[in-house]
């Protein structure tokens, strides 16, 4: 039983935390792909930017002495950071993507433009914050929650941190809100219509400009949320999301580009796959070692820990080969 709890703490808790970050990021990527038809590479840097905005706001709050009991200040400032990132995302669209779109540029050009935006944002972040790491928990503590299991002979407790719980709550709220927006509101239905068939949507009187704006609003705010959650879970550094933008694309592609629900499923799939692949499975085998025909080695991970991010890429490549449009059918460019 102790071993099972160890498994739960490492794989399930870690996977849920990582999965919710990936899912929230991948929704943004997939929405932009569905509406604007290009792979938005700068999404990872929009996440980093959001996280740094939240970090600055948190410092400001601490300087002003604003705090709420039981809630890390990082989560307190999250809504403001989301609004600010959204404004910047709209500005990025107006400054960089809208002129190209007007010219009728191909998706490939848009992709290259988004790499330019990536470099600009990353350059600016590094210019102001250097290349070191920051933590949201310098002056406050990251609370560890331990839940004892009421069973005989169980010594381990189920462990997770407070930010992880809040992260899952935030993800659930965001996903539900998005679900109701897409299925119930007029604008959400217009978005889905435009993702399905842009020409038909325009002909039937949908204001495509508004839809594009709403897409950036959702994508920007979700990017800020994902970035801040990632920074709260690990650390804040300038190349934070650059490394994570590929797993996010993997999640979006696994779920089928353009499919919001697919992106959520893909995010959790990649998150669990990463934590499960580096888990030392011999821990689970040890209690039944007597019954096994072979000797249980000391470490039995599917891949060594340093290959954790590689798992996402391997899944990505396999999915692209096996079912290029994703597990759920994706939009085509």
């Amino acid at each position, binding site marked *: 039983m102790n071993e099972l709890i160890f498994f739960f703490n490492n794989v399930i808790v870690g996977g849920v935390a990582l999965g919710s970050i990936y899912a929230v990021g991948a929704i943004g990527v997939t929405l932009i792909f569905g509406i604007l038809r290009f792979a938005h590479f700068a999404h990872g840097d929009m996440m980093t930017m959001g996280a740094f905005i939240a970090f600055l706001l948190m410092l400001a709050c601490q300087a002003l002495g604003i705090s709420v009991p039981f809630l890390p200040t990082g989560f307190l400032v999250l809504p403001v950071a989301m609004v600010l990132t959204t404004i910047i995302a709209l500005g990025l669209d107006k400054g960089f993507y809208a*002129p190209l779109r007007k010219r009728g540029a191909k*998706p490939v050009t848009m992709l*290259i433009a988004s790499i330019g935006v990536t470099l600009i944002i*990353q*350059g600016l972040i590094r210019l102001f914050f250097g290349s070191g790491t920051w933590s949201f928990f310098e002056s406050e503590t990251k609370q560890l929650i331990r839940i004892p299991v009421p069973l005989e002979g169980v010594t381990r407790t189920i462990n997770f941190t407070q930010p992880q719980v809040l992260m899952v709550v935030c993800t659930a709220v965001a996903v539900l809100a998005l679900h109701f927006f897409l299925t119930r509101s007029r604008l959400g239905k217009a978005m889905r219509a435009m993702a399905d068939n842009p020409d038909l949507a325009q002909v039937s009187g949908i204001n495509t400009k508004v839809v594009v704006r709403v897409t950036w609003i959702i994508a920007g705010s979700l990017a800020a949320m994902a970035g801040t959650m990632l920074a709260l879970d690990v650390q804040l550094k300038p190349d934070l999301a650059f490394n994570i933008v590929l797993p996010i694309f993997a999640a979006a592609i696994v779920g089928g580009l353009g499919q919001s629900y697919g992106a959520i499923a893909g995010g959790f799939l990649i998150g669990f796959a990463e934590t499960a692949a580096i888990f030392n499975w011999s821990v689970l085998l040890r209690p039944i070692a007597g019954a096994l025909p072979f000797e249980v080695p000391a470490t039995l991970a599917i891949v060594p820990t340093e290959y954790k*991010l590689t798992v996402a890429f391997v899944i*990505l490549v396999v999915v692209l080969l096996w079912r290029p449009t994703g597990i759920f059918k994706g939009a085509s460019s």
Partner: protein
Amino acid sequence: MIARRSLTLFAGLFVLFCVIGWALGAANISLLLVQSFAYALIALGLNIQWGYGGLFNFGIMGMLMLGGAATTFISTPIIPGFWGSEGPLLLGRALLAFAFGFLLVWGARKADRVGIRGGWKTALTIVAWAAAYIIYRSQIDVAAAYIEATPDGWIGGLGLHPVLGWLFGGVLAAGAAYIVGKICLGLRTDYLAIATIGISEIIRALLKNMDWLTRGTLTVSPIPWPTPLPQEFQASGTPITDSFIYARLGFLGLVLIVLIVAFFLVQRAYGGPWGRMMRAIRDNYVAAASMGKNITSRQLEVFILGSVLMGIGGAMLVSFGQIYDPGSFQPINHTFLIWVMVIVGGAGNNWGAVFGAMLIYITWMISDPVSQWLFNGISNWSTDLGWGAIPEIQSRASQMRVFVLGVVITIALRYAPRGLIPEVVKREA
């Protein structure tokens, strides 16, 4: 008109290099020249893939790393301790395990010949992959642990001439490109871009963590030069600053020969029937397919050819730098930089690719000292105003390169989407 424009641009580039050479000194400009010519070769490779064939390769970094690893393996001295130990035997067993695993997977994929079809075949293939992976890991882990425990900690090189290493870099990159192309070339543009980035990250993770092969983060150094080193000139009595210039000029000559040969061949290929066919496939692959061209195998061809140039270029850069550090390879420096070179220079035009490579490389290299100078100025000014100085100017200035690169590509896409020296589309009257 294009010819006049490109002459003017190249003349401007020459003047720019002269000015920078005058400002930085001959030793520094010879260093920049060698590197920018090596990047020009890599940009030619991307120009074949993207400019000729329309392939969206974002995995350049992986090819450069493979080239570097190849030249490291071929040209660094032999370690007798390794060859005398059990290491080669263990590695041989790992290789056998790999071959066995390959046969297993290959057999499972051909299972329909013996009547296993549909879901059963899929299941068999998955089991074969898992078995092959387990068999390979069971051998390679032992070998890697054994080799990493030896005093040297890695297998060393073969001690051959570095130019052979460059050739091997091209061969290795071609092999990798064949596999990558087989996997990815059926995909559409965006998917292809993401898949190639993913594969180059996998290559990076492997080379970074296979300490027995590349020493990983411990880095391999020094890697021998194909031409005499500055130290050899110093030994024969040349002053230190002059020795660097002579040695780098020697290296520069070799790089230039490779670049000119490659350029000549690539330019000939563009004008020939093969180049016409590639452009036909790029511009309208449906029409090209209906004319009986085998799109997939042509694209594989162009992907491999481009990757060979990238592999050779990567090998040259590593030889020249004398250090192989898998950790120093970054997508920004080794993939996006080259894309910016080709886009700014002009995709589809080899003169444009070479021009873009040299212009962007020099911009990339000098934006660091220029922004340092700029920041120092601002810092003095703000100190005078009483706002205090800018902290850590040195580390901040080196980050400006990324920003400048982003601005350059944005401006290029906006105002010169076809590049500074665009492709000349010939039309028969």
